[in-house]
């Protein structure tokens, strides 16, 4: 720490900022649990090929001699009807779940937020009306139905599932930021920037947006959970990942047929989904604390 402060005051400040951020985040032990879950799942997803005991189980693989084995020391979570190791498939399944969440949010957050900022700043004008009515139309459609419809019309695949979910997800961000931006635009500091002569871009992105970040990040972490669930639901009904891709939802769907005798084939993937979603939800609370301003 001392080296950092001698080497560069900028680094020292960044490090101090990081420590303080951790302090705020970790006030609530539950958030830390969430972080552990998420980091764990991410690690397993990234290093699935290296960490899984039977990486070949993730692809086209059959070994009927090992099929439908209950959990044992050899296969911690058992095997499915094709003889594939459930644990390894779960690790690879995390990849698809996380990818779903990351891709959808990457596609959705930026346009949604920008539209919300613009609509909120120009509240009361035609810009606001146009943007928000379009948003309302998208919000009026039940999300899962829309996703199902899109996937049914197009060929079912992971890619199409992600597109479908993205298409009905962006309005939520617009709504969220619209509310924040329209009240923030009347704050004195925004008016001070206007009086100074700052450009619209500056006001939207450097004055208003930083004050929305807390809500946006909290929503994003909760959304990860939702997107993963919806993705799993789509796969469950056969409209998302197609076999033999080890998607967690598909695994649950396939394994459901064998309940309750070969329970491990469905239950473990379901628990994996739960742990992932729970982890992101718990982090959401932590984000809120993280971005809170300390009262002096």
């Amino acid at each position, binding site marked *: 720490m001392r080296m950092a402060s001698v080497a560069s005051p900028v680094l020292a400040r960044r490090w101090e900022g990081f420590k303080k951020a951790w302090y*705020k985040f970790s006030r609530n032990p539950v958030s830390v649990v969430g972080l552990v879950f998420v980091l764990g799942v991410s690690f397993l997803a990234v290093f699935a090929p290296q960490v899984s005991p039977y990486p070949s189980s993730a692809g086209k693989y059959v070994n009927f001699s090992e099929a439908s084995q209950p959990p044992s020391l050899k296969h911690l979570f058992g095997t499915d009807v094709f003889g594939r190791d459930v644990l390894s498939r779960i690790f690879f399944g995390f990849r698809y779940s996380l990818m779903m969440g990351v891709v959808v949010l990457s596609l959705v957050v930026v346009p949604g937020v920008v539209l919300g900022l613009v609509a909120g700043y120009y509240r009361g004008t035609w810009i606001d009306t146009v943007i928000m009515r379009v948003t309302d139309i998208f919000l009026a459609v039940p999300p899962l139905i829309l996703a199902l419809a899109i996937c049914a019309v197009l060929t079912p695949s992971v890619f199409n599932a992600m597109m479908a979910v993205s298409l009905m997800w962006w309005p939520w961000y617009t709504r969220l930021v619209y509310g924040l931006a329209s009240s923030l635009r009347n704050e004195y500091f925004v008016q001070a920037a206007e009086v100074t002569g700052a450009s619209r871009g500056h006001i939207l992105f450097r004055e208003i947006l930083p004050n929305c970040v807390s809500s946006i990040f909290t929503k994003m972490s909760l959304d990860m959970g939702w997107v993963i669930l919806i993705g799993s639901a789509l796969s469950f009904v056969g409209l998302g990942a197609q076999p033999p891709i080890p998607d967690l939802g598909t695994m649950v769907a396939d394994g459901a047929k064998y309940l309750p005798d070969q329970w491990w084939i469905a239950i473990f993937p379901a628990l994996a989904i739960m742990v992932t979603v729970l982890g992101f939800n718990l982090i959401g609370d932590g984000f809120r604390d993280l971005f809170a301003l*300390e009262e002096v």
Partner: protein
Amino acid sequence: MAETLLGIDGLHVQFKVYEGRLRVLNGVRMTVQGGQRVGLVGEAGCGKTTTMRCVLRILPIPPGKITKGRILFQGRDVLKLGGQAMQRVRGHGISMIFQDPTAALNPVFTVGDQLMSVIRYGSRQDLSRKEIRERALGVLREVKLPDAERIFTNYPVQLSGGMRQRVCIAMALSTEPELLIADEPTTSLDVTIQDQVLRLLNELVDRHGTAVIFITHSLGVVRELADWVYVMYAGGIVEDARKQDLFDRPLHPYTLGLMDALPKLTGGGIPEGISGRIPDYLDPPTGCRFHPRCPQAMAVCSASRPARMGQGDNHGVACFLFGGETDD
């Protein structure tokens, strides 16, 4: 009239934050007699609101922590009371009104609803709905709100700032407390309305025999309202006196500084103000907390904390200029 209603004795409070512990209150001592009007004057951050929160036990306990001291209300230590007993103290015994009446009133309930629920929960007897309503209307009339029946059905947003504050006063007095704590109740009001509200408070307090602790940063307001004044700085009481004695003969260098720093209606330019800044509670000055800013500081001032020395019956000051005793 002469029994001590409230006695705060040696109150020490700390707050835990990222950087360490804020030692906010440093041995606060205060007494309020029955029916007495006490003014508590101090600048932002001196600890006056924190002290009052301790009296009502509404201080958020982590991160806050009462490390030492007693608060005796009608002879019982409030800090040691259980939940139920404390609930009875709040409302019946002690009531509070706050600086921002808009924030103190719930915007989605009518004035009447809020007033009635305060009366219902705060009343010593079991009252019928009709009796509660009558009492609510009565207390609205008492605070001189015109057309009490209409105000009863209004929402807070339909009232002006002064009217909302009157509603808060009505709520606070409806439970007939022995002590009313008013935390900067007129700071957010216009000057002419402030004048009205202060006069109203004076009248009500006289009529009901309630004691009042009036917190403010304005010496001018205190001069209009109080019988006895406590001057607070950085978590401790530096001077207390009967009002006239304080204004005729202020003793503590901080009090003198405060009075000097006020621009005068008679002109004379803008005064210098008190040099320095309020202390950092993480690492407060040793000894007397005012010594770094005090024009008359002596060597002993940084070494130990001065105790309150009486200067006659009606004046007390915690300063080594007036006596040699130290405090713990």
